């Protein structure tokens, strides 16, 4: 069973979702929880069986799909993807368990299970086509969740979300096809397997174009400034569970893909584009933090804060050294936990008051002390206080990038200031002061079902903040391999010096680089 655990992880929820249609409406909730729990246990089992000393892929499966074009069903995990898969299973579980009273609950649970399949698929896929398939499939359930259960502007928001991200990924698909074509030119065989692509050394000019193509797809998904405007709408209109999954997992696809594709495939281009991307990331951090400060709607604050934090993740990724990349992967997990929790918390108050405007609240700390406490902890985590989960990631990301640029890190570091400003301001508006609205006077505190989601998240937030080593170990091992490979593969002097040499044996077979002229001639024919 362990040999196929990844396929089980991917397809079990989808299968269960299909059966879910047949389940009685009254028992669908427990059915959903049961399926999601099994999925989560499977994910935990994967972690147990995972050998954290191995840097390469584990639990690989290989089934040929289209042999002529080298399209195969290949899945596998390493330290980079393992924890995101576990996190996605975890969020599906607590998401379903804490689902409130909504209409068409059956459809919602089925959709969530289907979504879980696509998420697991994206992070486990090691074939570009399979990856692309899951990547696009993940849009569908999200579109449905926003469009069916969203707020008043849901149609606009969901269509915008879908078309925007879809456009980006089409550009990415073109990039993938080109990549496979280059592979064909170099070796005479077609292959879409990422691990095969890793062995390819591309001339710098090709790298730049391909990097740009992949960048479009990833950047919109992240979302990077200036491609971020779909996100506030999507978050603003999505139901709580939709926002949670979107922020916690779906956004991570973009940053994960940067590490899985862009860095190892195009090391020279990564170095070439490092500064522009870092500048974008810094704009993202500061600008969206300021926009978040201007918001009147608490959910929008959290949404924009999400973008701001993603900026730090991007920055860590493009630090191009072990510290930075490890930090950015850890921050993906951290941000997933924290922003997921914050969206849950916003959902709690929205369920009670059916408004998200901060001016409607005030003085909640005295009415809902437990809620205020949990919100406070998550707020501090979001601000990046040490001993919470976010700090570890942010610290490592910024530390990593400091090696590349002092000034830019100093600017990016303002994240900890501007982050504190909007978060504290929002907290003050909502929880401090005296109660001004009569409706707020008798709000019930968080109930059991909400605690099911919030307590584990709080525990994780602090546990991983104090003892991040459990995650950092495996991540570090895999990242070292990636960085080592990037150093080996890089062609330009600049890249060699920017990417540290982590001595690991990396096998590099083909080399388009040696005769780029010939290849470009071939292309012209």
């Amino acid at each position, binding site marked *: 069973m362990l040999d196929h655990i990844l396929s089980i992880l991917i397809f079990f929820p989808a299968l269960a979702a299909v059966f879910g249609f047949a389940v009685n409406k009254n028992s669908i909730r427990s059915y959903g929880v049961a399926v999601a729990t099994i999925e989560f246990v499977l994910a935990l089992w994967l972690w147990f069986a995972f050998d954290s000393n191995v840097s390469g892929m584990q639990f690989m499966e290989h089934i040929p799909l289209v042999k002529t074009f080298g399209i195969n069903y290949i899945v596998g995990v390493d330290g980079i993807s393992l924890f995101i898969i576990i996190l996605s299973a975890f969020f599906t579980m607590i998401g379903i368990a804490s689902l409130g009273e909504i209409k068409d609950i059956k459809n919602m649970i089925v959709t969530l299970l289907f979504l879980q399949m696509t998420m697991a698929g994206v992070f486990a896929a090691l074939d570009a086509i399979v990856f692309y398939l899951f990547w696009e499939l993940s849009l569908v359930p999200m579109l449905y969740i926003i469009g069916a259960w969203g707020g008043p502007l849901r149609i606009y928001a969901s269509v*915008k979300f879908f*078309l*925007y991200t879809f456009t980006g990924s089409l550009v990415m698909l073109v990039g993938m096809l080109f990549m496979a074509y280059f592979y064909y030119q170099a070796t005479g065989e077609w292959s879409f397997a990422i691990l095969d692509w890793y062995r390819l050394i591309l001339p710098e000019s090709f790298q730049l174009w391909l990097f740009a193509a992949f960048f479009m797809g990833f950047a919109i998904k992240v979302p990077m*400034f*200036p491609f*971020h*405007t*779909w996100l506030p709408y999507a978050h603003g209109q999505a139901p709580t569970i939709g926002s949670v999954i979107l922020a916690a997992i779906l956004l991570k696809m973009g940053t994960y893909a940067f590490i899985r594709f862009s860095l190892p495939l195009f090391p020279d281009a990564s170095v070439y584009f490092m500064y522009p991307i870092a500048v974008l990331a810094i704009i993202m951090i500061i*600008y969206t933090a*300021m*926009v978040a*400060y*201007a*918001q009147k709607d608490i959910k929008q604050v959290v949404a924009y804060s999400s973008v701001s934090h993603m900026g730090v993740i991007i920055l860590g990724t493009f630090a191009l*050294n*072990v*510290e930075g990349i*490890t*930090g950015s992967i850890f921050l993906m997990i951290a941000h997933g936990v924290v922003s997921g929790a914050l969206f849950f918390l916003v959902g709690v108050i929205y369920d009670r008051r059916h408004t998200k405007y901060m001016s409607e609240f005030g*003085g909640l700390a*005295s009415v809902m*002390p*437990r809620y205020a*406490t949990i919100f406070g902890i998550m707020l*501090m985590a979001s601000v990046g*206080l*040490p001993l919470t989960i976010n700090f*570890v990631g942010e*610290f*490592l990301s*910024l*530390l*990593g990038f*400091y*090696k590349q640029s*002092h000034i830019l*890190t*100093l600017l990016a*570091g*303002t994240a*900890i*200031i501007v982050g*504190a*400003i909007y978060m*504290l*301001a929002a907290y*003050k508006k909502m*929880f*401090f*002061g*005296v109660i001004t609205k009569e409706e707020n006077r008798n709000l019930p505190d968080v109930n059991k079902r909400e605690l099911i989601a919030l307590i584990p998240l709080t525990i994780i937030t602090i546990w991983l903040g*104090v*003892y*991040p*080593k459990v995650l*950092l170990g495996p*991540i*570090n091992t895999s*990242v*070292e391999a990636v960085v080592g490979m990037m150093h080996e593969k890089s062609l330009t002097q600049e890249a060699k010096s920017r990417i540290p040499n982590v001595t690991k044996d990396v096998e590099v077979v083909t080399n388009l680089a040696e005769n780029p002229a010939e290849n470009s001639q071939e292309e012209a024919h």
Partner: protein
Amino acid sequence: MELFLYTALFSPLVGSLFAAFFGASKKTKIAGIVPSALLGISLISSFILLISVLTTKETVHVEMMTWMAAGDLYIPFGFVVDQVSVTMMMVVTLVSTVVHVYAIGYMDHDKGFNRFFSYLSAFVFSMMVLVMSDNFAGLFIGWEGVGLCSWLLIGFWYHKESATWAANEAFIMNRIADLGMLIGIFLVYWNTGTLQYEQAFAAMPSLEIDVLTWIGIFLFIGAMGKSAQFPLHTWLADAMEGPTPVSALIHAATMVTAGVYLVVRASPLYDLIPSVGLFIASLGAFVALFAASMALVNRDMKRVIAYSTLSQLGYMFAAAGLGAYWVALFHLMAHAFFKALLFLGAGNVMHAMDSELDPFKMGGLRKVMKGTFVMMTLASVALAGIFPLAGFFSKDLILEVAFVENHYIIYSVLLFTAGLTAFYSFRLVALIFHGEERYKLFGIHPHEAYKFMLIAMSPLLLLAIIAGSFKMTYFEMVTQLLPATEYHVHSSLTYWIMTIGTQLFVGLAILYAYKKYTSRDIKVPDGTSKMENSFGYKLLINQYYIPRFYEEYIVKAYRELSDIFWTKIDQKIVDATVDGIANVFYQTGERTRVMQSGNLSTMLKWMVAGTVTLLSLAVAFGLAARYSGEIKTFLSGLGV
């Protein structure tokens, strides 16, 4: 010894969690007593460690577990008890134990009693982490931890707008400085490859002076925030919105001195960069004078003491900057005792006066509050630096340091400030305890605080009086770690002239204050007197207009800029572009929809038109392919 170390460190945490357990329930005394008792244990453990360090001269160094490890970075949870940290531990645990016990009485009537103790103990824990950590990252944990607790405690009465505002201000100001600190830490890591104090400091002498200067500057920026040095000082006065025990513990004795601790801890670094040290000293002297001047006129009892704290922090930085680290640390310790005492006394007064803070509305309180009167007067004497109280030994030493190091400007500034210090301290004492009983006009019936609160304060009183006598023992202990420079004025004549002159100067200032503020003419100022309308007074009472400047040009600008970013740029430009692109497609569809009129005849026309287009394309490409050679030669002939 490790056991004592862990006990000293973790018992406040246990106390905090214990009190937090009762957080949401009704007030119970036990939520205050248990944390206080646990702090007592922590105090005893610290004391045992102190004795051990004193006698064996050995430090205790433990590594609890790994915190972060990635790439070459390795950060453990490591703790060290050496001569410096044990001093700080003693100060922290002692003052906090006193404050805890005191707060049981002070917070007696407050709804958030349990919550208060939870926060307070959490603060002590953070402070202990800060001082005991053996690496920069651990220091940063404590650093941010105390910031968090400070935020919680300043905003403790969260229903008050001013309190929450002050809390956020403090947190954000500290964050600005923390960024500097973080950058300093990054610099240390990338240049020395480690964050452990020992290895990092060992590697520093081989580094370039530029790098060291930057490290020193950035770390000091961190210290500036926490110790409220100019220009990040405004939060400290506003932080007085918190309950008075908090002011005593956090904003006088411990947290604000963390910056001084950092500089002392990083003494091997600052020894290498004397220019930065001089800057620190100059800034310290400036802040000492600057803060003292604001304290002269302020009409809020707690704010006066807060400015006095600021001023004394300036003294400490002056000493530390000049390389006299042990002197700075000594003043830190002495200051912690008498300043905490002063604050707690002020707390008693506040209690008695129904939270009235304006000393002009008090007067003559010595009759009803004997104990408090004695304590506050002695604390003020200590603060003013009169022989033989603690302040004399530590503060005089700083003056001597400045003199011996030939920094006469700093010396004279500090000397002048000493006079100011004496003046405003006794202005306060005189206004509160002497003169007419002006409070009667406001119908207040003052009463003395609980007895056990006074008893709780007594250790501080004792130490404020006798701390000076530990000077030599202390010197011997600390200088095993810090540079053991003794500061002696060369000729004994100069020494005596200086000392006696200072004492006289200070004494005169005290007398002047007494004379001015015990007179019967003192009225509650109503903004009409000549002095109140003078430029100098206005400047001082408005804190040099710095808070207003921040509000007008930074806070407001930030808010407006944010609004512009959102409404103008994000919505009108970025999002509008995206929607614009989508609109192009949409409009194209909308326009071309006319083609699908359903009228077959029209559609046939379009069909023909489409055919024509395609055919012409075919012909054009056919021709282009056929004559490609000619076209190329033609184009090259044109020079394209």
